[in-house]
């Protein structure tokens, strides 16, 4: 039971990193990325590659993943964010699907469908993190750091510019804000930090395959942010806990075939997304901050 809780806590903290970083662009900048799982994957595969090929430690491997994720997100964001919000949705959806093909087909690096096994434990300052408890500490530390970074960014002038762009892009532009650069920077920061979660995930499980980085993962991350509450600091954390506890809660329900739990979980959060959007667009925790609005909709 103890091992079960530790495992769940590690997975929650890793997913919370993803939700918090996604919220940074979705909630504060109003950018709709369906490609967050891809940057999670890039972080995981890159860290694994660097660790297995060059015997790199945790920090080096993570930094490599962050760098690659930042570069890929830059290539996506630079052209796609110049234009309307819908373009980024479509481009990120396409890139996510393309990434799944690459993760599956580039067998020499990603191991194909079978994935990569026997990933060495994370080495930190000459210390191998093998105990699950120690790993939990490491992932909580990473989550705490990332939450602090995001909080500092959101409260800085950069964060205020982001929110201004989200609420009225034209007005922000008229005030002399370089909209494209600010939005692109936000995407790059968010993607690079998502890669940290990927690195943690790979070192923790010592096994990764493409299944963890598919479109469904991106959607689940989006659901975590939305259900918890966009543009709040606590919302994504609450959403992560709720969604990750859902399968465990569902398995207590009688008459539920085990094979259908995944589907029912998705139906539940799909339904939650629809109902929240109709009755409470700010999410469960979203009462302090107004829900983001974009100019693309009809007012």
């Amino acid at each position, binding site marked *: 039971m103890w091992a079960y809780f530790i495992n769940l806590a590690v997975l929650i903290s890793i997913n919370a990193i993803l939700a918090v970083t996604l919220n940074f662009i979705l909630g504060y900048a*109003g950018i*709709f990325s369906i490609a967050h799982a891809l940057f999670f994957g890039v972080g995981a595969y890159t860290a694994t590659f660097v660790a297995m090929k060059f015997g790199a430690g945790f920090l080096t491997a993570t930094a490599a993943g962050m760098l690659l994720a930042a570069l890929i997100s830059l290539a996506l964001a630079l*052209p*796609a964010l*110049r*234009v*309307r*919000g*819908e*373009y980024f*949705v*479509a*481009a990120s*959806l*396409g*890139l996510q*699907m*393309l990434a799944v*093909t*690459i993760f*599956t*087909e580039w067998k020499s690096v990603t191991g194909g469908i079978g994935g990569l096994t026997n990933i060495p434990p994370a080495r930190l300052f000459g210390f191998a993190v093998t105990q699950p408890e120690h790993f939990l500490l490491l992932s909580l530390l990473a989550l705490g750091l990332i939450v602090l970074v995001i909080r500092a960014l959101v409260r800085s002038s950069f964060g205020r510019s982001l929110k201004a762009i989200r609420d009225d*892009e*034209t007005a922000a532009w008229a005030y002399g804000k370089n909209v494209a650069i600010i939005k692109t920077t936000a995407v790059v920061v968010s993607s690079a930090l998502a890669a940290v979660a990927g690195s943690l995930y790979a070192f923790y499980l010592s096994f990764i395959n493409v299944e963890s980085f598919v*479109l469904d993962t991106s*959607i689940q991350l*989006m659901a975590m942010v*939305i259900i918890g509450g966009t543009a709040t600091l606590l919302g994504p954390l609450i959403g992560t806990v709720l969604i990750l506890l859902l399968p465990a809660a569902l398995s207590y329900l009688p008459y539920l075939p085990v094979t*259908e739990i995944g*589907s*029912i979980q*998705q*139906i539940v*959060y*799909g*339904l*939650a*997304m*629809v109902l929240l*959007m*109709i009755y409470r*667009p700010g999410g469960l925790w979203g009462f302090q901050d107004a*829900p*983001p*609005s*974009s*100019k*693309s*909709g*009809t*007012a």
Partner: protein
Amino acid sequence: MLLLQLLINGLQLGAIYALTAVGFSLIFGATKIFHVAHGAAFTIAAYLFWWTTAVKGWPWPLAAGLAVLAAVVFGLAMERFIYRPIQRHEGAFFTVFIAAFGVQIIVQNLIGTVFGRGFVSVTTPLSRSVEVLPGLFVAPVAALAIVLAVVGFTGLTIYLARTHWGMAMRALSENPDLIRVFGLDPGRVAQYAFAIGSAIVVPGAIFTAMTAGLNPAVGAHVMLISLAATIVGGIGSLRGAAYGGLLLGLAENLALWRLDPQWSEAVTFVVLFLFIIFRPAGFFGRPHAAK
């Protein structure tokens, strides 16, 4: 000969994509709703057709009629019960998009739970390929898909240009307030757009069931194609969405000349990305579509 074969397959697939994308573009143009649950309408229609014909053995005209009915009811229900309540308090792109996405997730998983997650397909004499030239195989459905796409698109163009409701739909996209001034109800016009836009996915859904086969995740693919075709063609242009769909279908198949089939979505992405970089307004977009 292989190239010719791929060209014909590409035309067939492109015709299917074109119809589906035109439906999405019509709804988006008239109502400014980014209807990503369009793929769900496609999935529902396709599975209903498969279930009634392949499982129940009902005659296909009846099955096709039911598929149209289901798609229209779905589209209208989305407008009435999801989009309208959301737009009543705030019409943000964000909320509408997330809700539509939620519906897409629900439909995909419900269909997976009810009908299973494997591939299913409808086999008819029409989907059996005939060797028309040595080494060149064409199934009658290919011709049928192309003809139906042309007829459907022409019919829609005439409808929008000539009829009262068609003109109202075009007016709604230009200026919703003016519609009210003329004594029309914008909600009614939006419902027409949803009904027609959803009905027009049915041919694509049926042909997909008869050719490539279905799985519950087909909606996500349809969503990508619809979005990509709309952007490639130019947001707000029906003609553009049709050409965009055609181009994507052709590109996907011609790529098979050199690439394995699992790269088809990669080809879609590359085409989309090239357009976003070099011609963000699309084929027929207004120069200021990109703000």
